[in-house]
């Protein structure tokens, strides 16, 4: 089973975000492989172990995004491809999906494309479906369990009240939730091996796309800090914390 996994390099989510004009600053800040993407890489590696094939990591981002690909390679993926282009700075989900679709098509035939449900930094949560549409593939999002066989997959898809079992023909695209598996750690051997694995670097023109094709139509009219909640009282529990909460609940007429 040949699988492409879309991975994103994001500013470290444990640090406060920095802005670069209207967009999130992505260059020159400490970054990581989006923690949500580790589950997709792990899912792909498990399917490869069961069915054979190859795992290709696909990413779009600044040159620094190579770190995210290397991290996925050190977990065990076979190769990577990174699309970097100045004109892609500040891309929205529609443009990102278009570029990733062209990149995936250029890499050859895949049985399965895997993404995260949403990125940890932008969390628009629509890129997977948009990408599937550009690729002309069926998609199953919010997958929390995967069974693959020849030519088809059977998955559990999370719903508001439980889950559905969905069967889909292959090729298909799935987005996986964080509950789908336990991502493996990269071993020292894996990290060393990753340095020798092939990574292709592409620009927009390599994909046959122009600046017009990737122009972002959505624009920010205005940005302002949200009205902050009034600073509350934070107290160290000295044994009276529970009583303070009870007072608060009484005042709120809850008890």
């Amino acid at each position, binding site marked *: 089973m040949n699988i492409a996994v879309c991975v994103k390099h994001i500013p470290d*989510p444990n640090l406060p975000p920095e802005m670069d004009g209207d967009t999130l600053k992505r260059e020159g800040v400490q970054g990581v492989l989006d923690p949500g993407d580790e589950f997709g890489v792990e899912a792909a590696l498990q399917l490869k172990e069961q069915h054979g094939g190859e795992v290709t990591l696909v990413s779009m981002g600044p040159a620094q995004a190579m770190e995210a690909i290397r991290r996925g390679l050190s977990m065990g993926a076979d190769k990577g491809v990174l699309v970097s282009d100045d004109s892609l700075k500040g891309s929205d*989900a*529609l443009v990102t*999906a278009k570029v990733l679709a062209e990149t995936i098509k250029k890499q050859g035939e895949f049985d399965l494309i895997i993404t995260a449900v949403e990125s940890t930094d932008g*969390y*628009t*949560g*629509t890129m997977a*479906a*948009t*990408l*599937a*549409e*550009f690729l002309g593939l*069926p*998609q*199953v*999002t*919010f997958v929390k369990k995967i069974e693959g066989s020849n030519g088809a997959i059977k998955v559990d*898809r999370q*719903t*508001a*009240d*439980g889950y*559905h*079992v*969905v*069967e*889909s*023909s292959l090729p*298909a695209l799935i987005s996986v*939730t*964080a*509950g789908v598996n336990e991502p493996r750690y990269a071993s020292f051997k894996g990290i060393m091996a990753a340095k020798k694995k092939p990574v292709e670097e592409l620009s927009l023109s390599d994909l046959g796309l122009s600046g017009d094709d990737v122009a972002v*139509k*959505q*624009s*920010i*009219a*205005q*940005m*302002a*800090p949200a009205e902050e*909640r009034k600073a*509350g*009282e*934070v107290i*160290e*529990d000295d044994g009276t*914390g*529970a*009583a*303070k*909460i*009870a007072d*608060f*609940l009484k005042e*709120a007429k*809850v*008890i």
Partner: protein
Amino acid sequence: MAKVWVYAERDGQGNVDPAALEILTKAKSLGGDVEAVILGAGATDAAKELGQYGATTVHASDDAVYDDYLVLPHVQALASLCEQHSPDAILFAMNYDSRDIAGRLSARLGSTLMSNAMDIEGTETAKTAIFGGAQIVDVKLEGSPKLVLFRPKSFEAKAAGGEATVASVEVEIPEDAKKSKIVERHEEAASGPKLEDAPVVISGGRGLQEPDNFKLLDDLASAIGGAAVGATRAVVDAGWVPYAMQVGQTGKTVKPGVYIAVGISGATQHVVGMKGAKKIIAINKDEEAPIFQLADLGIVGDALKVVPQLIEEIKTRKG
């Protein structure tokens, strides 16, 4: 005059998604022509309710193809309706199927899609919050139709008592659109009051240390009475509690009178689902936890000590 459409999803029981009624109410207030689209068995019957909330025309199909297969038939139907009627905007609730439908439509129609919206002005700009609600951004919408996904509970639903004309959706669904089939449906029954409706919500996170300690929150909920228990994505992903209890970006959006966050750090993922609460109480060991920046009352302490004391305290006061 702008023609605004609202796509109405239905829940597992076939009821109209409450968020669709909220969005219809908002759409009506924009003053244009408001129409709705609803697909799947029972859709025509649901049209009446959509009319009461502001839709003048409801495009409906009772075809079970929309219940049996994931999103491709819905995208086909909407794309075809757009071709016939050219709406200026289609508004969706940010639910499981809707985000996929809107995402695919965005590619098919070349329209931009605005995710996580919390408000809209005319059909030109929509508002969203970024960085866990720290910044409010007005985004200029482009394309035709404009596509917007709203977070549930962004507006209050108000029935105005109108009546809708039903327009039957006659769209040929090709075999190609029947590639992802739902073969089984499982519901994880949640006990107690519904998270979305409860006046008090108590949620637990990793700080509870182990799944068994969630029982403490159930006990606190019964001590208070009428409270619902929720959870963070981290503990749902870890399998401690069912997904139906998840509050956050993926999961439920709640706006209770009082929200009690127990052992929750306050990750963006979680905060976007609960920051609309009127009052927030947080209990966490780590005084640096971001949840304290939102809390009206923050207790820096061990939840496993504070919660049992609180249960006793409430019982004593209630006599």
